[in-house]
């Protein structure tokens, strides 16, 4: 049923950080797909590995971090086999990234037009400056920035405008995938909503895919088509955003959804108080990494790690409740559509 074209396949991706206190497995053996033209929300709390994952997809992990295993397949090619030059071409043309703080991503002594022209010319050295400029202008206006702002320096722009310039930089080389890592987090709520509208818009007009990495689950509900929930270096649940919100399967997702504040007054439910805090990934819990906080934990959960099981087409969960095992005492839950 989900006959979506696949843009990027991530297979068994692991990222480790070497620290004084030991190795941190920030992303541990994660596999998923990103479809063409979709908005995929990747949510999780701080330290769950979501930002590391985003960077890993562009092979931008810096030492002491390292991608220790896995494949990232785009257009039939595994980018893990690319050399430096191929990677440079890949970044920007195929995949681009927007970060939380545009001020640290933009060059403070470069004007908006210079940023965009540079981005074009680095990748397309034959493009004349005038042509690049007119492309930049067209794009910037479509993003709701007035033309006279092209000559502004980053500090002269508001936070929302800076972030739009970043979006423009991501789009100018016709990337197929934009990774937005907490791109709306430092913005005020009205500006955040404006940018969310724009992201939806550019998906329509440019047909790009968006990977929205955020801790804000309500934003994902507002924006995404599909949702992946990360906990302690694993994707624990994935599916259509409506389905996951309606019938969350993983106990962590269940708890998380019940602990999000809802501004609607007719929602009178008290917030769920999840016990404990996310684990330290130098010594992750054995078995399922969520088991110490899980209200459904069984003996098997601390013993073996569950695999990421596709319980229905396009719906996967990493939890022993839904997986058979000879050592399990309880019944396995069958998920029906």
């Amino acid at each position, binding site marked *: 049923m989900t006959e979506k074209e696949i843009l990027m396949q991530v297979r068994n991706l692991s990222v480790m950080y070497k620290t004084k206190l030991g190795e941190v497995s920030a992303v541990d053996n994660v596999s998923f797909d990103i479809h063409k033209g979709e908005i995929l929300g990747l949510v999780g709390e701080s330290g769950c590995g979501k930002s590391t994952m985003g960077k890993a997809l562009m092979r931008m992990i810096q030492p002491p971090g390292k991608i220790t295993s896995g494949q990232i397949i785009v257009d039939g090619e595994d980018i893990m086999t690319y050399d430096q030059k191929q990677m440079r071409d890949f970044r920007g043309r195929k995949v681009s990234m927007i970060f939380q703080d545009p001020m640290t991503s933009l060059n403070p002594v470069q004007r908006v037009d210079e940023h965009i022209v540079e981005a074009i010319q680095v990748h397309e050295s034959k493009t004349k400056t005038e042509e690049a400029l007119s492309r930049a202008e067209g794009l910037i206006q479509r993003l709701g920035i007035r033309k006279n702002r092209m000559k502004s320096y980053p500090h002269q722009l508001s936070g929302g405008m800076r972030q739009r310039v970043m979006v423009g930089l991501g789009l100018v080389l016709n990337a197929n995938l934009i990774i937005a890592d907490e791109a709306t987090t430092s913005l005020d709520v009205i500006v955040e*909503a404006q940018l969310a509208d724009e992201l939806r818009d550019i998906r329509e007009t440019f047909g790009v895919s968006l990977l929205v990495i955020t801790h804000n689950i309500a934003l994902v509900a507002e924006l995404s088509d599909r949702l992946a929930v990360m906990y302690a270096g694993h994707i624990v649940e994935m599916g259509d955003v409506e389905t996951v*919100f309606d019938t969350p399967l993983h106990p962590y997702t269940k708890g998380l959804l019940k602990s999000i*504040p809802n501004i609607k007054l007719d929602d009178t439910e008290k917030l769920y108080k999840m016990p404990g*805090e996310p684990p330290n990934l130098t010594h992750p819990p054995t078995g399922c990494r969520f088991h110490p906080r899980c209200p459904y934990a069984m003996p098997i959960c601390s013993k073996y790690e569950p695999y990421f099981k596709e319980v229905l087409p396009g719906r996967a969960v990493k939890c022993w409740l839904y997986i058979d095992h000879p050592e399990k005492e309880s019944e396995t839950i069958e998920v029906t559509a």
Partner: protein
Amino acid sequence: MDNLINDKNNNDYLVEVQNLIKWFPVQTTFIDQLFSKERDFVRAVDGVSFNIRRGEVLGLAGESGSGKTTIGRVTIGLEEKTKGNVIFDGIDLSTLSAEELRKLRRRMQVIFQDPLASLNPRMSLGDAIRQGLDIHYPETANNHRDMVLDIMEKVGLSPAKFFYNKFPHQISGGQRQRVVIARALVTQPDLILADEPIAMADVSVRALLLDLMVQLKDEFNLTYLFITHDLATAKYICDRIAILYLGKIVEISELTEVYAYPLHPYTRALLAAVPVPDPHDRRTEPMPKGEIPNPINPPPGCRFHPRCPYAQEICSQQEPFLRELRIGHEVACHFAEDFLTES
């Protein structure tokens, strides 16, 4: 401690803020000074009045630059006001000497957003909590350790003896915020200024901290001034809420009243902008254009008028004042009546 029944009509105010103004001078260059160019001011708070009833939680909500933090800081005397009055439990703060203000501080404590920045990394948790006691109650020094252990248990740092000698870096973010809460409570304050107290915490930890704050409020008869940019979280703790825009209150009332019948166009936009955790209920309202303007030269008339979809000529000429349009519900908008009939 006073044990007053907290009903909506009581006029027993712990804090009265009257026409508060706080302008920060903008740094000028030497050349500008030479030509005695007029000094610019950031009008962070520009004529704000509100009261906090004993035992209630008043929320101050707004975007960055709305002045919410400055109001909080001036209210408890951390910052000098430019004009206006702050009256705490009948005492006008401006009549106090520095020494008297310091003594009064025991009754007004603060919880900041970033617990790691609020704690001295070289001071053990127990000592950090104890410091306030040692300063304000030197005569009972012998009991302080027990008092600290007691309050640590109450905020959920249990077993307290285990945590007493730990340092901030050895505990989790949620636990650090509990230390900050314990430190604020140990001097037995009446008022807690909570400036974005849970904004840094993860979603799964927030609910616990919010619940703790509500529970402690009841146990210790506290009054909170709760500063937040997060209107969804405010719903779970605030009794009343004031919506701020560019140094002014644009709307103030009971929280449920404001959320059910928002009368100011800005409040309406702000409430609509908050994402709802329900993919079946996506926002369709368009957002107002632009961003919060520069508080050095705020727009004339109604400060929201350049962004307001309902703005008329009068809005750029005449400043609207807060008017009570429903019982206990004040709003500063020339055309708020239009929304009144709608609701």
